[in-house]
Every structure is written in structure tokens, then in C-alpha cells.
């Protein structure tokens, strides 16, 4: 079991414009209204990098920045785990199109933006963090995989870590081969011991016999949970928003689920 404390949360998705604005939706006080994704400008990045950064990076950075603001901590000294099913699909598509065409010459910027750890790279440049940054994938289970990696890091280093999970739709022909209809990023600043009052505690456990996976709440968000790998976090976010003890099960691998006990830090 991995115990963690949630120091800050960031969220950027369609109709989910930041954690504060999403709270009443996740607690059921106001209805979910789908809206086009609005990604805040990547103000963390130096001008040169801001020009080069693809949309996935802006999205991931927006969620990360919000989570650190909420935590009142510095990203410059916090290791980071990035989880994504596909990295920057737009860049990949554009490279594939170029390579299939008559002139296979690639843009160097586009090439370095095609790596799966593109967001991790820009994040460390933006924050000045020389601490470790990783980038991982477990297809639809990427959020759960990122959470156990972040938890294992927090435990091993006895220090805080940020998890940033994001996914975006593929353009072009890959959109049909890998259907991700929306873009969403979520960031959780996690620590092995609570740094502030009123923190929520989450205990992670793998369960090899897969019971029912917890649905998103409100139910209007369930289609997003099912189709956007990063949105597999939504049941956890709803439990954190409600601030009441809860037991939830998140999608991970075909034969393995991630069980999470959620509760106030002082009740644990």
C-alpha cells in the first residue's frame, strides 16, 4: 500500500476550466456543461520555447502550474512524472505525413517535439527543475500507471512529486485508429506526509481481480472517462472534491486495477 497526501490539484479539460471552477461540477452542485477546451497561455515558458511548444505541452503545463499554485510549493525542486497514452499526436501526425510525401525532410523542432517526454522536457526548462522527470505510458491505463510511479517515487525519496497526466485527440487518419475525442490534463502534487492542513489522503493498492471500475461523477462525465485515458482520473477527482471517505477503483491494465481509499488526512 502506498499512502499519499494531495497537496494541490490542477485540471484543464473541456468544460473543466481549472480545479476551482470544476469543484461545483464534481460535487454535483452545478451541472456539467461541455465547452471547448481553453488552454491558458504557457506563461511559465521563456519566449523562444513558448513559440515552439506544441499544444500538448501548453495543456500539461497549465495543469501543472495550477497544482503547484494550490500546493504553495515550488516546482523547481519537485520531481515530475508525466503520463500520456500518445504524447503529442499532432506532431506525430505531421511527421508521418511529411515522411509519406515526396520530400521526407523534417523540421528539427518538430522532431524534438515528437518524443513522448516532450512535456517533461519543456516543464523542466520552464520551471528550472533539475530534479528527475519521467514520462510513461500504459495505453488506457496511463493515469493509474503514472499514479503508482509517482507514489513509489514519493515513498522512495520521502519527498513530494508531481503527476501530470494528459491526452489529446490525434488528427488525421490516426484519429480513427485511436479514438480520443477530447483533450484533458490533470496534475496532482503528492507528498508522503501532509505539508498543509486539510489535505486529503489517498492509499494506493493494486487489485488483481478486477471488480467494477468506479464511474465518473456526475454521470455526464462518464463518456469522457471512458474515452480519454487521462480522464480515467475523474472518479478520484470527484472523491477528492467531495472530501468524504470513499473507496474507488480505477482502470489500469486488463487484469489489474488500481484501488484507492480516499479520506481526510486526519481521519486516516
Amino acid at each position, binding site marked *: 500500500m502506498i499512502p499519499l497526501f494531495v497537496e494541490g490539484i490542477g485540471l484543464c479539460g473541456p468544460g473543466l476550466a481549472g480545479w476551482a471552477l470544476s469543484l461545483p461540477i464534481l460535487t454535483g452542485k452545478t451541472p456539467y456543461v461541455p465547452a471547448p477546451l481553453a488552454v491558458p497561455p504557457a506563461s511559465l515558458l521563456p519566449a523562444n520555447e513558448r513559440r515552439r511548444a506544441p499544444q500538448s505541452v501548453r495543456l500539461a503545463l497549465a495543469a501543472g502550474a495550477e497544482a503547484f499554485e494550490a500546493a504553495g510549493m515550488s516546482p523547481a525542486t519537485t520531481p515530475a512524472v508525466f503520463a500520456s*497514452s500518445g504524447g503529442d499526436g499532432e506532431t506525430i501526425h505531421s511527421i*508521418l505525413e511529411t515522411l509519406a510525401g515526396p520530400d521526407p525532410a523534417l523540421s*528539427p523542432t518538430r522532431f*524534438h517535439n515528437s*518524443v513522448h517526454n516532450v512535456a517533461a522536457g519543456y516543464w523542466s526548462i520552464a520551471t528550472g*527543475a*533539475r530534479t528527475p522527470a519521467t514520462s*510513461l505510458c500504459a495505453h488506457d491505463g496511463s493515469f493509474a500507471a503514472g499514479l503508482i510511479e509517482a507514489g513509489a517515487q514519493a515513498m522512495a525519496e520521502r519527498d513530494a512529486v508531481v503527476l501530470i497526466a494528459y491526452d489529446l485527440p490525434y488528427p488525421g487518419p*490516426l484519429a480513427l485508429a485511436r479514438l480520443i475525442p477530447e483533450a484533458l490534463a490533470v496534475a496532482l502534487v503528492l507528498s508522503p506526509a501532509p505539508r498543509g492542513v486539510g489535505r486529503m489522503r489517498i492509499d494506493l493498492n493494486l487489485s488483481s481481480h478486477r471488480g467494477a471500475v468506479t464511474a465518473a461523477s456526475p454521470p455526464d462525465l462518464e463518456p469522457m472517462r471512458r474515452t480519454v485515458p487521462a480522464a480515467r482520473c475523474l472518479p478520484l477527482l470527484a472523491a477528492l472534491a467531495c472530501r468524504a471517505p470513499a473507496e474507488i477503483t480505477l482502470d489500469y491494465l486488463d487484469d*489489474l486495477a488500481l484501488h484507492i481509499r480516499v479520506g481526510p488526512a486526519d481521519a486516516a
Partner: protein
Amino acid sequence: MISSLCLATALGAGQDKTWDALVRGRSALAPCRFDRLPIAAYAGEAGGLNDAPLIGDWAPFDCRNNRLAEQALRADGFEAAVERAKALYGPSRIGLFTGTSTSGILQTEEAYRQLCPMNGTLPPGFDYDRTHNTYALGRFVRTRLGLAGPSFTISTACAATAKVFAAASRMVAAGLCDAAVVGGADSFCATTLFGFQSLGVMAEGPCRPFDAERSGISIGEGAGFALLERADAAAAGEALMLLGTGESSDAYHMSSPDPEGRGAEEAMRRALSHAGLRPEAIDYIHMHGTATLAGDAAEDKAVTTLFGAHTPRSSTKGFTGHTLGAAGIVSAAIGALSIQHGFLPGSPHTSRLDPAFASGHLLEGREARVDRVMCNAFGFGGVNCAVILGRAA
């Protein structure tokens, strides 16, 4: 401890073939046969992949990258070692942490040339989940080996299969598994070949790490896996141990290393600290050394700052080519061989060491007792990872 290791590169499948080539100084680099590349690049192409499709249950996973992974899994008695571990721990208690940079994207490159002329869709039979996706490698190996523990694929460019060692040891420490298979594969694709060429860091002719005249990388194909278990008393002494890992970020540039090598130095410092070792305890440094002007200079600076000029060091990229996402596991496997055989590999195409560099670079292989090895792997995004392997005693 590392109880089993397997390896497949352009030098051949199996540690013996690799070892034989390292001792004889035989490089596997040859003119790159990839279409349309505008320079006379050399590459390290793994043999036997074109006529070895994955068949039966594994057919949906068939792509060059998974074929290369399969080639490694069949080598060095690795499957038998995993079967023994499954019987001992149970499949659900063995984690699988793989690394790759481009997974099976070659499959998608080919599919984009065969789009339906009517509606622009990918050809029938294209299987994104089992070939292109970054986790396709993890999904294939997990199914292939019958493992049922936690799993993900790390994709941090050329440091991916070094970081898997760190991830696996944390997962075991956190109690999520009792043992782990780590490793990965990276194979040729136009994305990386044309990508590195676009950056102007691909050599004409074979790569020459740390040479005064070096002009860039030669890309190679590689795959390898290691079985990590907690050390038991019976295995102590000569057992090969994972002694420490260290990770850091440059926070400098997406595709150029920090010229001061601060990120690389920090990763090595963290690995030493994690292992509880002083720099003097390292007998050999297996350098990342890809033969780019900036990368080799930054690494030489970092290593010399930390270890001084004398600790023997070399890059084996001149043998295998730069295996990109597989560089970490190839480095660890060669490091393990150097301990096992008491031999330090040289650097075949390096004829004149850059006079700006410290003197510990080996151009020719030589015999020496090796107890502890530092293996470096650095990648795009300024990601750095160092792994220390050594004898238990």
C-alpha cells in the same frame, strides 16, 4: 540482484555474440540501407528481423520493434529464468517496466503510405494499440512472458531503458511486486533517421565517439531485458547487483545538452549516493558517448569533474550504433559483461581522442578486474540517468 540478462543488437542475438565482437574489436556498423536518406550514414542493423514475423497468438503484435524484442527474449536463457521466477513469486508479483522511444511507429509510417485513396483511412489490419502505441512493447512482452504484475513503458528518449531500473527498484521497495523484468527495444524508423539527420547530428560514415573528428551518431537497433530479484544470501558474492540509480534533468534545451554537463553530473552523483559509493569505487564508466560534438563534450566534462581523468571510460556506440531508447539496457548489459569477463571494451572507429578530453578514454579494449560499473544514458528533453552495477561483495 540481476539474475538473468538477454541482449540483441546489430552484433547479434545473445550476450556471447556481443562479447565476442567487443573483444575482437569488430564493429557492426555498415552503410545505412534506409531509402532516401540524403547523407551516407552508417547504422547498426539487427539481423534476421525481416523474415521473422510474429505469428499465431502474437501476430497482432507483429512489427519490427516487437520482433526485435522477441529476438532478445529468446536469447541467453531468459525465458527459462522468467519461468523460474513465475513459479517462485507468481506472475502477478512480477512487474514489467519497459522502455522505448519510438515503439512500432515504423508500422504507421508504412501505413501512411498506403492510405485509402477514397477516404484517407489507414489500411485494414493496422493495429495501433499493439504496434504504434508506446505501451505496445509493454503489452507484447507482458503477454508473451505471461506476467500479470504492474507494468508501464517509460519513454524518455535515449534514457528510457536506464530509467526502468530505477522504476523497478522503487516498485519492489514499495511492495507492489517482488521481482521485475526491465528492458526494452528500439528499432529503425524513418522518424528517427530523418529526425537526427534534420538536426545535423548524424555522421557520414561510422560514428567516432570522443574522436577529435567526430561528426555525429550512427543509429543502431537494440533490445534487451534483465530480471531483477531481491538478493538472497546464497547468491551473494559473485552475484551481479543493481547497486544504484540516479536521475536528473538538464532544464536547459529540448535537444542540446547543457554544455557544462551539470545534469549528467547530477545523475551520476545521485547514483553514487543511492549506492552509498564514492567515485573511487567505480572501476569503469560505460559512457553514453553518442559521438555528437556537444554531447560527448558535456559528458566528458561531467565525468571528469566527478571522477577525475583516470577512471577508465569508453563508449561502445562504435560497435552497436546508438540504440536510442534501448541504449540504457544495452549499456547495462555491456557493463555486466565487463564485470563478468574482466574486460574493458574500446571504441572501434575512434582513432584520435579529442585533445580537449581527459585521458581515461579507452580506444582499445583491455583486460582488467571490474567490480563496479557506471552506465550512463542521456536523452532529448534533457533527461539523464546513471545506473551502477557491481558484484555483491
